[in-house]
């Protein structure tokens, strides 16, 4: 059985994608399509005084130029951009003459061709009254919020820290980062079959469609959100984009289909990003390295009016058995677009800071960093006192150390030298991510012909959720994957909960499994006998019924039937990490080996070993890919990526993929992945916890700790660049 469960199966949609047959949102063939392009604001803050459209209107092919005067009726609701569900927050550009960040759309040019739209947009002349601004949290007009966003504590951490035998008190800086999924963000709006269909590669089709309807004052049942495939989301596509409602409104006003694909350079200014953050970490330990106290204060940049929370403090206290803890997270407001969730949104920066601080503590105590972590392993959560549903972090560390050859590590920095003179450093760090679940309404149909289709909640963003759903159906029903149609991401088929936060598998797998089990039950009722080993469709055929359909509502642990109604209305309804009887997290340990060239300070990551405890592994192939992707991102965060803002202008200067440096193949050495693969049935019937996010948590810290082990330098900001090690 276990063999089957963790089978290394090809993705069910692999051929579609490789052959270019998978149609993404912007690929939909729609007759009479108009093309739109936005005019980006060239100031960081102020007001539009006048818009001169004469030249643009004369561009052949331009159909209509919209400004804020056309869109003033659009409502900024809690579903709007940047509001994050909070009334009074968020900012929808082009609903007033106010400009709140550089690059925000100030006009929308719609034309018969893309070329005309681009040329028209370039010809629009805007006169502004600009106002003083600060686009970085270090600058004069940045304003810190008076109250912390979140505080967590247990025991008297200050006192415990003051009397600890060993103490570290360090501050780490994490830069602004941009997701840059390969699929650009696009919106296509078209009236089809009496409803307004919005094709957009979103991670949240129901919230998106319902939210748009609310902003536009439309009947939500007349608006359908379709997200056929998402070409990478990573959290950047989990809400309504700055242009979504503008394009939808343009289609309504023009009574014609309209498409807009935001260019990469503009996305750096309109899409969300991981905000810059500062982390002060104080750790106190006794002589044996036992953690007596953790004090953790973070500050994170946010837009002037946005609702994105600062949540760095949520995970670190759960990592180890702290005697006492106190954490607080604060926001500093600046003049940028809204930041947002980016893969392991707070867990990655907070693990960077706290896991590097653990490395510093290991040195202060004089202990091996793996040993220090093992000595502080915990089976219950220091904050709530609840036990963890499952925690195999110690096994991750032990197995990882073995696979990696951790015993080669020398405590003295720079003591391991390669044949070519490079300094070799080995580093370790751990991570965790909450195990969440959501509701689903699933309809499963089996045909006597062997065909099978399933409609449920989920968005395929490359993580392989279609393959996860298929895996459950293959296991329970033995269906043929080539005859299986998985319908997700479309509010026309089933309500679509936002897919994010690593709850996709933990929600979709039990939903598919539940439906499959119910179908077996119904079939055996029909046949009047327990099912045999024969294929289910053959047994169905014998009943002379052409098909059998079941619908199942999946209600996650700790919730009641109300979540189904919330799901239908597009309201997020996740559970976890706190459940009635336990806390649930996925865990991971990363080991990194770096080689540092002594003359130039170039760092090369030769090898990473990562061992994860994510509950049951649904598909070894997609699971390993998830972890490799997370590790690559961690390496990028440690050594490459940073969005750069010139304080005089605002905006992001390195706004393309040539200058926003992400790792390339030549930067990545071996990445070996292994799993504990112990199902967590306390959480759900599939035994799944979640993997996509935890994969990245701690990876950057492992690299940074390895750089220290090679060079003896504690660089306390990211990315570590050549000039930091020269």
């Amino acid at each position, binding site marked *: 059985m276990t063999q089957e469960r963790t089978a290394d199966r090809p993705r069910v949609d692999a051929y579609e994608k490789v052959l270019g047959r998978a149609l993404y949102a912007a690929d939909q063939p729609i007759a009479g399509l108009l093309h739109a392009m936005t005019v*980006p604001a*060239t100031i960081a803050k102020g007001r539009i005084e006048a818009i001169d459209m004469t030249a643009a209107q004369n*561009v*052949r*092919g331009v159909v209509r130029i919209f400004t804020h005067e056309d869109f003033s009726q659009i409502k900024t609701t809690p579903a709007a951009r940047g509001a994050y569900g909070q009334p009074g927050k968020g900012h929808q550009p082009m609903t007033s003459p106010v400009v709140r960040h*550089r*690059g925000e759309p100030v006009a929308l040019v719609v034309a018969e*061709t893309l*070329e*005309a739209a681009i*040329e028209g947009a*370039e010809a629009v002349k805007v006169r502004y009254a600009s106002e003083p601004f600060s686009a970085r949290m270090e600058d004069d007009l940045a304003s810190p919020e008076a109250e912390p966003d979140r505080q967590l504590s247990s025991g008297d951490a200050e006192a415990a820290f003051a009397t600890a035998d060993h103490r570290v008190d360090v501050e780490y800086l994490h830069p602004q980062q941009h997701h840059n999924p390969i699929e650009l963000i696009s919106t296509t709006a078209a009236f089809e079959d009496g409803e307004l269909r919005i094709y957009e590669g979103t991670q949240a089709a129901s919230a998106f469609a319902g939210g748009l309807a609310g902003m536009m004052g439309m009947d939500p049942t007349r608006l359908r959100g379709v997200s056929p495939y998402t070409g990478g989301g990573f959290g950047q596509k989990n809400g309504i984009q700055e242009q979504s409602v503008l394009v939808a409104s343009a289609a309504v006003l023009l009574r014609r289909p309209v498409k807009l694909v935001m260019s990469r*350079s*503009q996305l750096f*200014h309109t899409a969300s990003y991981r905000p810059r953050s500062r982390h002060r970490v104080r750790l106190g330990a006794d002589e044996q390295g036992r953690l007596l106290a953790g004090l953790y204060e973070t500050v994170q940049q946010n837009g002037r009016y946005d609702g994105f929370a600062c949540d760095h403090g949520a995970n670190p206290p759960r990592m180890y058995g702290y005697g006492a803890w106190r954490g607080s997270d604060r926001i500093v407001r600046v003049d940028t677009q809204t930041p947002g969730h980016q893969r392991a949104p707070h867990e990655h920066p907070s693990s960077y800071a706290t896991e590097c601080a653990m490395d510093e503590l290991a040195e202060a105590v004089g202990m091996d960093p793996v040993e220090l972590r093992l000595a502080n392993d915990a089976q219950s959560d220091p904050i709530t006192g609840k036990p963890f549903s499952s925690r195999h972090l110690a096994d991750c560390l032990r197995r990882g150390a073995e696979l990696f050859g951790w015993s080669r590590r020398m405590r003295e920095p720079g003591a391991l030298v390669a044949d070519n003179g490079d300094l070799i450093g080995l580093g370790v760090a751990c991570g965790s991510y909450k195990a969440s679940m959501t509701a689903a309404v699933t309809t499963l149909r089996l045909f006597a012909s062997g065909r099978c289709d399933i409609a449920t909640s989920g968005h395929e963003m490359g993580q392989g959720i279609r393959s996860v759903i298929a895996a459950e159906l293959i296991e329970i029903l033995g269906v043929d994957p080539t005859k299986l149609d998985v319908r997700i991401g479309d509010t026309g088929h089933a309500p679509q909960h936002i897919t994010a936060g690593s709850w996709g598998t933990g929600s979709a797998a039990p939903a598919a499994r539940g439906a499959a089990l119910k179908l077996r039950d119904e079939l055996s009722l029909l046949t009047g006998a327990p099912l045999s080993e024969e294929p289910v469709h053959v047994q169905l055929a014998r009943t002379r019924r052409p098909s059998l359909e079941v619908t199942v509502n999946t209600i996650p642990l700790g919730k009641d039937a109300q979540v189904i109604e919330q799901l239908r209305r597009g309201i997020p309804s996740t559970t976890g990490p706190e459940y009635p009887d336990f806390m649930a997290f996925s865990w991971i340990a990363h080991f990194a080996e770096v080689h540092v060239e002594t*003359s*130039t*300070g*170039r760092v*090369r990551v030769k090898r990473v070993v990562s061992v994860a405890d994510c509950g049951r592994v649904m598909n070894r192939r997609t699971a390993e890919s998830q972890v490799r992707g997370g590790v690559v991102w961690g390496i990028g965060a440690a050594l*490459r990526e940073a969005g*750069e803002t*010139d304080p*005089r*202008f605002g*905006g992001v*200067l*390195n*706004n*393309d993929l*040539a*200058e926003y*440096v992400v*790792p*390339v*193949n*030549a*930067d990545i050495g071996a990445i070996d992945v292994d799993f504990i693969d112990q199902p967590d049935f306390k959480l759900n019937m599939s035994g799944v916890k979640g993997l996509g996010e935890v994969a990245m948590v701690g990876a950057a810290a492992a690299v940074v700790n390895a750089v220290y082990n090679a060079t003896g330098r504690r660089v306390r900001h990211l990315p570590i*660049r*050549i*000039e930091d090690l*020269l």
Partner: protein
Amino acid sequence: MRSLSYIRAKTVSEATEAFVAAGEGARYIAGGTTLYDLMKLGVERPAHLIDIASLAGSDRIETSGDVLFFGAGARMADVAEDGVVRRDYPVLAESLSKAASQQLRNMASVGGNLLQRTRCPYFRNGAIGAYPCNKREPGSGCAAIGGLDRGQAVLGVSDACTAASPGDWPVALTAMDATVEIQGPAGPRSVPIAEFYRLPGDTPHLEFAIEAGEIVTGISVPKTEAGRNSTYLKVRDRESYAFALASAAVALAMDGDHVRHAHIALGGVATRPWRAREAEELLTGRSIEPDIALAAGKAAFAEARPGAHNAFKIELGARTLADAIMTAGRKMQ
């Protein structure tokens, strides 16, 4: 809509005549990897494209005569993979194979490569924000000075512009005393590569010593035994597919253990491909030792003028050059 005419020329004279006939707004296009990019950024707005990618014989690679000759239309990938170039002039091959990506090298010509423009982010970003930039809009000022200048040059800078010259191949050619062969409406001429690139001075928008309508037909490189002991070292923010933070082209002509003559040029650190004569002189008559190599590296940066965030390029550039000298020296054995 902006209209664009396009013709494909078959001979050099057909191309130059077409250029004259087209008048304002004419541009030659070879691989298009720079030109299309600049069109998207709004730096270039050509009205007429004259495609010179398939001029008869323009992709010639000639290694058997007294000089090496590379037709301007030869692809970067083809020159980088040429057997003689790789064996006898690794500095040339490496400067190409470490540039851009394989896909780009398959398209890009070695002639077009000479004419690529700076990566200064303020220059490239003008379409979205109209930053002051004297290269883009003469007289508008320079946003890079006092701005995010980590990537800017430290050598050859002026108060009007500090933009780094981006190319790798031009650096190797500068070290190897190449000559640029040019054909214009008025006839052929040869320009030593040292005179092909201008310093920014007060006129940073004037970058190349080539007149409108002239065509680069080829590049000649004098043959030298120093080619064998040569290397191109490129240090960048990632291991591939990035422009140089600092690079060094080094070729050494030796008398036994001693340097008779060194050819040295630097990239990523200067406003044009930078011949490092001070470093060459310092090496002359010396044997190749780490401390001498580093002294040569430091000598090359004696006149450096850093900005706010790029002072590290002085140290990095010196060490990069020192490493390149040691590598070239080791090829002796």
